[in-house]
C-alpha cells in the first residue's frame, strides 16, 4: 500500500514530461512542400489510402462544367455554357474573354482587394503575388496560388518557412463588420461586433457616469475634517 503514492507521483511526473515534450515536437506540416490539403498534409506521411481528393486529379483543358444547385437559367440548371457570368475559379486564364481587359487596372474591378495590410502597409503590388499574364484562377491546378502550394510558391517569398496552415491567413480580409464578412469570415465578423459593442457599451455607460459624478460633486459641500487629519496619511 505504501507504494501506491510513489507510483502515482511517477505517473504525474511522466505526464508532465510528456505534456512538455509535445511543445517541442517538430511542426505537423513541413514547410515549402506541396500538400494535398490546405488544412493538413496529405495523410501526414503520404501513405496511399487508395482514394484521391478532387484537386489531385489533373484537370482537362476545358471550361469546367459547374452547376450551382438550385440556380437555374430559364429551364436549365446553371452551367458554364448557359450562364452569362462564368464561374472563373478554375481557369488557366481567369480573365479570359473580358472585354478591353488590357486597358484596365486590377483595382478597377477589384477595389476591395487593395485595402488590406499587405497592399496598404507592405506596399505590395497585385502582381508581386498573383504574377504576370495570364493570371490563373486560384483553384486552377497549375496555379502557384493553388492552396496546395501557395505557401511555398507565394507566401514563402517573404515569409520564409511558411506552412500551409500559415497560408490560410486571409490576405484580402473583408471589412470586419460588413455583411460580406458575415458570409465569408463569420468569426472575424463576430469578434468585430463583440468588441464594438463592448467599446460603445463601456463608453456609453461610463461617460454619463463620470459626467454625473462631476456635476453632483460640484453641488456637494465638503465636510470639514478635524485639523489633525489634514496632514495624516
Amino acid at each position, binding site marked *: 500500500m505504501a507504494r501506491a503514492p510513489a507510483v502515482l507521483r511517477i505517473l504525474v511526473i511522466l505526464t508532465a514530461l510528456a505534456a512538455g515534450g509535445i511543445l517541442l515536437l517538430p511542426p505537423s506540416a513541413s514547410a515549402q512542400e506541396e500538400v494535398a490539403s490546405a488544412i493538413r498534409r496529405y495523410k501526414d506521411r503520404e501513405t496511399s489510402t487508395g482514394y484521391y481528393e478532387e484537386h489531385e486529379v489533373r484537370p482537362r483543358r476545358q471550361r469546367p462544367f459547374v452547376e450551382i444547385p438550385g440556380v437555374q437559367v430559364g429551364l436549365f440548371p446553371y452551367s458554364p455554357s448557359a450562364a452569362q457570368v462564368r464561374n472563373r475559379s478554375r481557369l488557366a486564364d481567369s480573365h479570359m474573354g473580358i472585354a478591353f481587359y488590357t486597358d484596365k487596372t486590377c483595382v478597377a474591378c477589384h477595389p476591395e482587394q487593395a485595402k488590406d495590410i499587405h497592399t496598404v502597409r507592405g506596399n505590395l503590388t497585385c502582381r508581386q503575388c498573383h504574377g504576370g499574364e495570364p493570371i490563373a484562377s486560384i483553384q486552377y491546378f497549375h496555379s502557384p496560388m493553388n492552396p496546395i502550394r501557395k505557401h511555398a510558391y507565394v507566401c514563402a517569398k517573404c515569409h520564409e518557412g*511558411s506552412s500551409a496552415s500559415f497560408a490560410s491567413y486571409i490576405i484580402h480580409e473583408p471589412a470586419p463588420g460588413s455583411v460580406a464578412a458575415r458570409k465569408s*469570415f463569420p468569426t*472575424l465578423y463576430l469578434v468585430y461586433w463583440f468588441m464594438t459593442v463592448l467599446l460603445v457599451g*463601456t463608453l456609453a455607460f461610463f461617460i454619463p457616469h463620470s459626467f454625473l459624478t*462631476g456635476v453632483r460633486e460640484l453641488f456637494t459641500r*465638503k465636510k470639514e475634517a478635524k485639523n489633525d487629519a489634514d496632514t495624516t*496619511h
Partner: protein
Amino acid sequence: MITFLLQTATGFSRLYITTAWGKKINSVFGGYDTSLLIHKWVGVVMMVGFVIHTVYLLTRINWRTPMKSIFGEDSLVPNLADLKQFGQRILWFFGLGSHPRFSRWTYWEKFDYWAVYWGLPLLAITGVMMMYPLVTSRFLPGWSLNIAALLHRAEAILAVTYIFIVHFFIGHLRPSSFPMNEAMFSGSVPLKEAIEEKPAWVESLQNTGRLNEVSAAAPVLWYRVVYFVFGYAALIFGVYLLINGIMYARQVSLH
C-alpha cells in the same frame, strides 16, 4: 504608466502611418519597423509586470482563510455590495438618496482594475501570436492571425479611450479628486480624503485597531512636485494622442 503611453504612441504611430500625423509621431520612434521593435520590447516588459503582479496577488491572499481573503472587504473581487452601492450612487446623482458608504474599493475602481487585468493578457496573447506568426500557425490555423490582429487593435482602442476619457476624469479631474489623486505615487491616501470617500473602510480599520498600523508619512514636497509634473505631462500626452487619434481616424485607409 510609461509602458502604457509608449505602447499607445508606438501602436498609434503604426496604425496611423498612412496619415500625416501618423508619419510625424512615427518618425519620433525611428520609423515603421523600429517603432514595432520598441512596441514589442515594451510589451515584453508589460508581460513581465503582469506576471510579477499576479505572483504578488497570490502572496496577498491569506491562505488560511482563502474564501474570506478573496471575497472580503479588502479584495478587488466584485460582490453584491458593489451592485447595491451602484444603485445608491445613481439615486445620489439625482439627489434622490444619500451617498453610498464605500469601503476600500469603489465599484468603478474595481471595474478599472479588472478591465486592465483581462485586457493585458488579451493584448499579450494576440501580440505574441503576431510576433511569431509561423509558430502560431503550427498550433492554430493561419486565419487566427486575422482574428489576433483585429482583437489586438480593438482592445487597444478600447483601453486607450477608456483610460484617456473615463479614467483620467474619474481618477483625477473630478471635483473631489482634483488636481490629482496622489495615491499612485505617494502610496498613501490623506486620512481626510479617506474619511470623505471611503468611510466604511476607515471605520473598519478603526474597529479592528489597525488604523495606526496602516498610517504612513505624508509624501515630501520635492517628490510631490516631481510627480505632479510627471502626471500632468502624461495626461497632456494622452489627451494629445486621443484627440489626434479621433481626428485622423477617418483617414486610416485600412479595413
